């Protein structure tokens, strides 16, 4: 496992190992970003998205894949590229469906990095990207708080949000 030699020598297996141990996280993210962003960007641009959409989709997919590794829900048997691509595609297709703007791309669903079966084992909601954007905004507003307090604050916020109709967050 030669970590310090070159970027490309960091394999999917190495990344799973390091991220699950919570070491060299930035280095792993850097490798994953460099090796997978273009793939996701091309997919989103092909499916009526913009570069900004591609960035949103990719960042969320990547942060979720890292979280899945941290939680031990991903092992090193399947390439991380497959996870990132599959999750990104699903997120983007769901977003298009929500906008009633989804044109089915048969060719894309047979993409070498797409594996629909993976999604069955991943905790995933139909409007995950939308939820993420909402949550992210709230998280940013609450950010200076200590983690435990932050979680409580966010929980209270989401509880009120689901019971009423989208109240404005005030920290």
């Amino acid at each position, binding site marked *: 496992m030669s970590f310090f030699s070159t970027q490309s020598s960091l394999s999917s297996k190495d990344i799973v190992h390091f991220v699950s141990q919570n070491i060299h996280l*930035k280095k792993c*993210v850097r490798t994953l970003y460099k090796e997978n962003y273009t793939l996701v960007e091309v997919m989103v641009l092909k499916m009526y998205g913009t570069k900004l959409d591609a960035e949103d989709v990719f*960042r969320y997919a990547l942060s979720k894949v890292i979280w899945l590794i*941290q939680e031990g829900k991903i092992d090193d048997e399947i390439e991380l590229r497959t996870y990132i691509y599959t999750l990104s595609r699903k997120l983007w297709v769901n977003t298009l469906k929500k906008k009633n703007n989804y044109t089915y791309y048969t060719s894309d669903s047979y993409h070498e990095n797409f594996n629909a079966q993976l999604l069955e084992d991943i905790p995933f909601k139909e409007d995950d990207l939308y939820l*993420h954007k909402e949550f*992210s905004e709230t998280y940013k507003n609450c950010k200076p708080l200590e983690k435990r307090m932050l*979680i409580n604050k966010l*929980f209270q916020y989401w509880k009120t949000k*689901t019971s009423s109709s989208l109240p404005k967050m005030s920290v």
Partner: protein
Amino acid sequence: MDINEVKDRVNIEQNREVIDTVQQQLLREKLFKVTISITIKTIAIFLLLIFFYLANTLQVDQFILDGVNKAYIDLEGNDKSRLITFSLEGVASDLKEGNYSSARKILKELPSSHHKDWFVLLTHLGLNDFDTSEEYLTKIYDQTDHVYHNELDYEFCLKYRVIHVKSFYDEEAKTYLGKIGYE
């Protein structure tokens, strides 16, 4: 959304923060690479323009004449041998007139000296014998205490290289047979 999902989403957000940092870092690196690339290209174009300018304006005879004018021959101050000094003056005179073959003949008879090295360099440059002139150029450059060591500055070396490259071009031009078609 239950408390566990909030916890999970907070962890995902923390990962996203790391991704944002890396993204910014990659963007900075990309900008740096672009800047470096533009700078290198600009310098390359600038050097190329200088080269073309020198290739068009630089005259070998004038360059050698300037070189001769840098020679420090002092008839009064040189107490080694008046004959040698007079011979060197003769070489200088030949070089100024462009009689490089004659200068070479005189130089062959002279004993080794810093002045001789300098004149041999200039003479063989005039004769398009770059092997010999290069040899003396290296000799003068390597000897830091050589009287003419400081004359080999960037300007001299650049002009020397331009003349060298130009000599290839001149040779090619001589063998160009395009004019035969008009005769």
